[in-house]
């Protein structure tokens, strides 16, 4: 039978991305240009965050002696264009066989993470590289770029970017103006949709630059900074320099130059193994800049933070932004911020604890932009000068020393794994206690002897597998 005349287009999208609008535009485009066009979908599925397929077929009316029989679902090996609004949806199109050697794949390279990727305790993100490689390998042609970014830059929605890319690809026998007419005929947000369309059109034709990344400046600005940098360059292996500079910066911001110097003392005492020192430079800086109430307060009141929030919530210049923090300092955190003897005494006294606890049982709505709360947080941030006297400081430094002692006593490959276990200790309140508990269980097991480097890595992964600690229980038992 003769070569087919129909054009088949599948749109794979997620809820809220306007896949339905895009499908309507394409149907409209076909109908306005003397094609018999048909679109189908399963509405409601995408709305509730699932993934769905819109499917369009069109047939030149001039070639039709009778009404053509059009299909309602894409057929593997018979799809001319696949439009995917997200990288994993492009992957799903490939997985379902919609992308064949005759297919033009137009896909956004940005990610909308699935719930399992988001809720992992560590980094649960799927690899995008495999999808990109498969797209290059399987499709006749692959047009991929970050359409979410293009939508944000033009203030439009991703559906208009995709429609622009479809036009820019040149695969359909219609001029650019016909596409733009379809947007006008749709009648919704015509101006912004046309802007998005133009951005998508240019991107598909390889026009329109990618934003340049600004290199990070690492040059010190103070005498103390220069001295510490000189020390890093003199005493630490090259591989560890980036993290060490970052660590010194962090700790000078967190406390002062002397504290940063203590950091370098501790690093230098770990020996000369580059792999160990690189990881230690990272994890020691993180542990030494543990998040106490002083640190949180200091970060919350900064001018740079106010500006960042304004940008993030897309506040216009003439709009006022008011901020409320959701803080929940418990009696433990409050006592840990107090001078060691006082804090320790309160926590040790059941009577005092019982009486004071209810005062800190409720979460607080802290209005950082109000004068009262701003002053309060500023005072707390200024408490930094007395941080070395706080109970929390005493506790954390003891933990750090114990951890470093373990690393110093171990062979470098084991020491690296011990050092990496710091990753488990993060968060606040219950989360912090869970992480610390997991860390301590692994260390305790190590102290009993018989754990090789690979075993520690395995236990660490197990600790990140589930919140209830079941995987770690099993791993420790085996």
């Amino acid at each position, binding site marked *: *039978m003769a070569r087919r005349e*129909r054009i088949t287009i599948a749109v794979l999208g997620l*809820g*809220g991305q306007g896949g339905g609008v895009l499908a309507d535009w394409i*149907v409209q485009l076909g109908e306005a240009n003397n094609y018999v066009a*048909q*679109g*189908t979908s399963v*509405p409601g599925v995408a709305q*509730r*965050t*699932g993934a*769905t397929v819109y499917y369009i077929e069109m047939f030149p009316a001039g070639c*039709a002696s009778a009404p053509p029989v059009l*299909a*309602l679902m894409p*057929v593997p090996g*018979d799809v001319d264009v696949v439009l995917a609004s997200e990288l*994993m949806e492009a992957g799903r199109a*490939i*997985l379902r066989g919609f992308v064949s050697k005759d297919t033009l794949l137009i896909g956004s390279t940005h990610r909308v993470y*699935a*719930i*399992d990727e988001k*809720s992992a305790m560590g*980094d649960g993100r799927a690899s995008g590289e*495999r999808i990109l490689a498969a797209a290059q*390998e*399987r499709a006749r042609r692959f047009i991929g770029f970050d359409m979410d970014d293009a939508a944000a830059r033009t203030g439009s929605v991703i559906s208009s970017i995709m429609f622009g890319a479809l036009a820019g690809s040149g695969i359909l026998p219609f001029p650019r103006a016909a596409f733009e007419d379809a947007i006008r005929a749709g009648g919704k947000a015509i101006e912004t949709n046309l802007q998005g369309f133009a951005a998508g059109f240019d991107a598909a034709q390889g026009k329109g630059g990618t934003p340049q990344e600004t290199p990070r400046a690492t040059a010190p600005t*103070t005498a103390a900074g220069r001295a510490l940098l000189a020390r890093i360059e003199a005493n630490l292996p090259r591989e560890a320099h980036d993290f060490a500079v970052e*660590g*010194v*910066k962090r700790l000078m911001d967190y406390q002062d130059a002397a504290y940063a110097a203590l950091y370098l003392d501790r690093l230098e005492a770990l020996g000369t193994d580059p792999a160990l020192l690189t990881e230690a430079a990272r994890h020691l800086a*993180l542990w030494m800049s543990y998040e106490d109430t002083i640190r949180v307060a200091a970060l919350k*009141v*900064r*001018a740079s*933070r106010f500006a960042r*929030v304004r940008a*993030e*919530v897309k506040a216009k210049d*003439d*709009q*006022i*932004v008011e*901020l*409320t*923090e959701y803080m*929940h300092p418990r009696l433990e955190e409050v006592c840990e911020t107090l001078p060691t003897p006082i804090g320790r005494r309160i926590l040790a006294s059941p009577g005092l604890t019982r009486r004071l606890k209810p005062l800190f049982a*409720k*979460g607080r709505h802290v209005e950082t932009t109000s*004068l009262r709360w*701003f002053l309060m947080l*500023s005072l707390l941030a200024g408490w930094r000068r007395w941080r070395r006297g706080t109970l929390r400081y005493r506790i954390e430094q003891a933990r750090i020393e114990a951890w470093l002692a373990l690393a110093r006593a171990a062979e470098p490959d084991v020491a690296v794994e011990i050092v990496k276990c710091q*990753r488990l200790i*993060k*968060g606040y*309140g*219950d*989360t912090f206690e869970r992480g610390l508990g997991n860390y301590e269980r692994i260390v305790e097991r190590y102290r009993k002897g018989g754990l090789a480097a690979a075993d520690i890595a395995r236990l660490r992964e197990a600790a990140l597998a589930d919140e209830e600690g079941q995987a770690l229980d099993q791993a420790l038992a085996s």
Partner: protein
Amino acid sequence: MAERSFKAEVEQLKLGDGEPFHGEGILAVTKALLQAGVAYVGGYQGSPISHLMDVFSDASDLMAGLGVHFESSASEATAAAMLAASVNYPLRGAVAWKSVVGTNVASDALSNVASGGVTGGALIILGEDYGEGSSIMQERTHAFAMKSQMWLLDPRPSLPLIVDMVEKGFELSEASNTPVMLELRVRACHVTGSFTARDNRRPPLTVAEAAAAPTRDTNRIVLPPANFLHEVEKIEKRWPAGIDFVRRHRLNEHFGTERDEIGIIVQGGLFNSLNRALELLDLSDAFGNAALPVYVLNVTYPLIPDEVQAFCAGKRAVLVVEEGQPEFIEHELNTLVRRADLQTRIIGKDVLPRAGEYTAAVIKDGIARFLRAHAPDRAPAEEPAQPPALPPGAVPQRPAGFCTGCPERPIFSAMKLVQKEVGELHVSADIGCHLFSILPPFHIGNTTMGYGLGTAGASAFKPEGKRAVAIMGDGGFWHNGLTSGIGNAVFNQDDNLTIIVDNGYSAATGGQDIPSSRARPPHRQTNNPIERAVRGVGIGWAQTRTRTYDVAGMRDAIRDALTSPEKGPKVLVAQSECQLNRQRRIKPQMAKALRAGERVVRERFGVDPDTCTGDHSCIRLSGCPSLTIRSNPDPLRQDPIAHVENSCVGCGVCGEVSHAAVLCPSFYKARIIANPNRRDRLRHRLRGWVIGALQQRSARRLAARAF
């Protein structure tokens, strides 16, 4: 207010003779009903029939103008019982729902209306929910057609044919005194296409006129001895009349060549997929000119013995393409072929899969297998299977979940917190959006037994110590939960907790109004509080919480209900408006106020990247689509941090969850005041002076001790 408005589209329903109609399948069906002179219409929403109900609802003025009665029925059983109007009177009536689940609910009334038979045409429009996104995909409406002896139409997905089948369906129903089911697959409901319209027809007799002049025929009532008569009548009169009508009006179609040694029999709804499969095998073209005979069953029940015999005679083998199981049509074909003493082999499930959707790719493989066995010279060459480009695990699954800002999410966050205190609970889930609690990140819910049956599903659990929890939506509550769940729990002295999710709409089906809705639509009586209803059937312990976003409050209320010394069933009504509907309602209002220069406050949440440590506890407790992750901007940290996208509607759950679960101080709420008034500006300026000065001072100090 429904998810989608068809106000603009229903204008097309006014088209007259000869005018071209362009639009979706469901609109075409509605137009066809009006052209057929329907007198009354009812139904219950549910995918893929929700939009049909919304079209009816948006067209209710037009229908009223034509003298057509329309109502949104309380359930599918209610809708089916409405067909009683066609028993004694020559009234054409149509009802609609999602099948097979809705047909289950309706089956009591369906058995009765099918037994007594109808005088006026009775059409049941079914959204056959099979395949992608379906609920009970393994059951078939076909079984109901067989057991109650109702005719089942499964038209080829072509708008002109579907429209014609609506008209023919009424005629068939009247000719054989039998209710007729019109089955539309999900994608057929939403397929776009064109047909030539005809004038709408006022019903020759309206429901009001029928009510004014009642007639009665006791032979139509299902009561002995009439029901014995019905059985005989079904076999001796209605069945032959139905077959005769289908044959005379050629409702089934033939495609392809006249004669061959092989052929294909296909359900009408699958024809387009079949033709595409044939095309890919070089056995057909874009217009259905197949290279072998194809018999298309637009009527899948009953089969027409003469037509089957004529088609099968002289053929060695016939492939039957029949989706779902058991393969009723294949069984029946075998019987008919045997009775006709033909030697034709009927091939179906031995080359086509027993389970799963029949996509064109699946059908193509089945045909290839059929040809290899029965016409090897026409079989395609075997193609080596291409190795998969990706392993399935490379692409993460996207299970459906609660929308951004959904008021149901905090209920389950609260339940998760309660479970941390009291241990795992047995949770009897219901049908509705709240069923997503079963999926990540909540993992709450043990069973689901049907719409409005959450409480009934927990009724066998008589607790000693730990109470079971049942979930019910407001939609399910009014559908039947009040009686089958709450009333039953009172009567049988249950001691469980029922949480009723009262979001103001039948939200899962697209936001239709229900008796407890807060909206005041013109043709409905709403604002009937659920708590009053449950107290009315004897509940003693009932509480209504008016803000589900208060996670700590929800947690305490659930804990109270589970630990209260009081015996007896407990009901907690958890109220907050469905966010999808709320956004649809307030977004235009806000845009209008902004344009008018009025003060508008928008709220949204955010995460501070420098205090977030990337544990994602917040995501495990909330799961909001707007709460996502992004690469950690901190070069020292590895794990991605939480991040709130601009789609955030500021419901507040992130903050409340982090308070209730003592998580972390990273969440902030931003109130963005557009067009601030003088007081706002004054306060802002005052704060700006002090805060700005302090910030400058600390920035200087920071610079002094910086790297």
